[in-house]
């Protein structure tokens, strides 16, 4: 097996004086889709933001293609070929859908064939092409946020809860999109609460709790082991109450 495209080694992150991540450690194998699961507040978003350089890691290594990127600035990290879909979507509300995508296509003009593919997956993008992104509905904004990350080929996508607020048919499209991206040699690290969604897509899994990784393995193993699911994800249910 080839070396993982991304591996976290003992990642620690502080936000102000709070110690949030305590030695997070897992690998994201190249060309696969890795799910990052865990209850609310487990530290999933913080992990993704640390990879992107939006929080500075206070200790540990973030190896991307073998190189430690902890300490690089966010734009430098993005330019290595990592795209990020934040939980808040962070679409530019004053800009049109088109302008949002133009900005995301950092390497040049928008590619027609790729756009047609995007429009096929997310028809709303085509319909609202010239409207300010601020008028989109929540789900449509989510689609735009994902479109922005995939409008050009990238090596690694970090996606934070893309299924939130989406209709089942659009979730199906999203699953299709991620599958096709994977075939096109894009690696994906996906944070997800929706286990059904996760099960259909994931190759491998990492489960977090309290700023630590509490389980690593293949999705197939987790999906077929009801006891383990109960233990890991039941734990997340308990924690909700």
């Amino acid at each position, binding site marked *: 097996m080839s070396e993982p495209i991304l591996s976290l080694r003992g990642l620690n992150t502080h936000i102000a004086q709070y110690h949030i991540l305590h030695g997070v450690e897992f690998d994201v194998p190249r060309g696969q889709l890795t799910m990052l699961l865990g209850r609310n507040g487990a530290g999933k978003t913080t992990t993704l933001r640390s990879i*992107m350089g*939006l929080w500075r890691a206070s200790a540990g290594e973030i190896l991307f293609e073998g190189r430690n990127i902890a300490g690089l*600035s*966010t*734009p430098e990290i*993005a*330019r290595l070929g990592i*795209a*990020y879909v*934040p939980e*808040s979507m*962070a679409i*530019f*509300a*004053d*800009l049109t859908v088109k*302008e949002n995508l*133009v*900005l*995301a296509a*950092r390497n040049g003009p928008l590619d027609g064939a790729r756009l*047609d*593919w995007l*429009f*096929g*997956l997310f*028809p*709303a993008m*085509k*319909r*609202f092409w010239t*409207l*300010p992104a*601020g*008028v989109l509905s929540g789900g449509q904004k989510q689609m735009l946020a994902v479109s*922005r990350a995939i409008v050009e080929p990238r090596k690694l996508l970090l996606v934070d809860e893309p299924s939130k607020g989406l209709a089942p*048919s*659009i979730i*199906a*499209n999203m699953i*299709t999109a991620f599958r*096709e991206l994977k075939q096109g040699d894009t690696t994906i690290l996906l944070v997800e609460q929706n286990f059904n969604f996760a099960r259909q897509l994931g190759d491998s899994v990492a489960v977090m709790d309290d700023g630590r990784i509490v389980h690593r393995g293949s999705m197939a193993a987790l999906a077929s082991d009801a006891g383990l699911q109960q233990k890991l994800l039941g734990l997340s249910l308990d924690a909700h109450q």
Partner: protein
Amino acid sequence: MTATVKAATADALPQVRTDRLPLLILPVVMLLALPAIFDVPAWLTLTLAGLAMGMMIFLMASGLTLVFGLMDVLNFGHGAFISVGAFVGASVMLPLAAWMQADSFALNMAVLLPGILAAMLVSGALGYGFERIVIAPVYGQHLKQILITMGGLIVAEQAIHVVWGPDQIPLPRPTSLRGAFIIGDVAIEKYRLLAVAVGLLVFLAMMLVLNRTKLGLLIRAGVENREMVESLGYRIKRLFVGVFVAGSALAGLGGVMWALYQETVTASMGMQVMVLVFIVIIIGGLGSVGGCFIGALLVGLTANYVGFLAPKLALGSNILLMVLILLWRPQGLYPVARR
């Protein structure tokens, strides 16, 4: 490729309402002033004077509002660029006073344009140094920013005294920009016309850059969400330095134009104008260039109308204007969307 959802059918696109209400204030204010002044030629003269003043304030304010929008940096030292621009412009123009006073448009311009250029260059360069040395260490700390930039303003004002001496410098306008065109009963001052033209030109150029270029897209996106622009791979710090320098250069331009308008240059003029500049960017909605433009014209018009009707209330009227607008829209005319 696959598309499992059928394209949405007949339902209409949502209506996008562009917010035009603030645009209406300008004509409303002008029309209200007409019966109050009750003298059409005087009203026309005051309106032109107000627009000219507004345009100059806009030149000085636009950079400040963008810098705030982009990086959440409020630069109280912005006034220094205004004063320095005026002094540099005067230093270039005064040695060539003979050409300034010559009755030749070409000779006048041969002094004026280098003067303006030098002012913009020096203010821009100063802006670069200011950003690197004074502001960069205090990103994200509002209290320190206000204190440090205010300290920078004091030092700059004193440094001006060291370089250019303690006294104000008279700066007469070039001959071809003095006087007025007389059309019927209406006197249209040439210099005011020029100020309006320059202000309008800069505003249009800015709108063009902001709306039609990728650089402009980046700035607008950065004003909304700095982190996301960085996550897309753009170095926003560089963008910010660029905007800061451009804003400082424009402040320098505004400073020269203001000095020629007043026909004197003083070290404290930057600080004095800053009061109006702050009112303007608050009225406009911190971070919005369009709002800043409307706010500047509104302030210029109000100052001139009220200055004519009740001279003692002129400055108070701007505060009142600000209060009224904030009562209507607490975030200013065009609040900038933020996370």
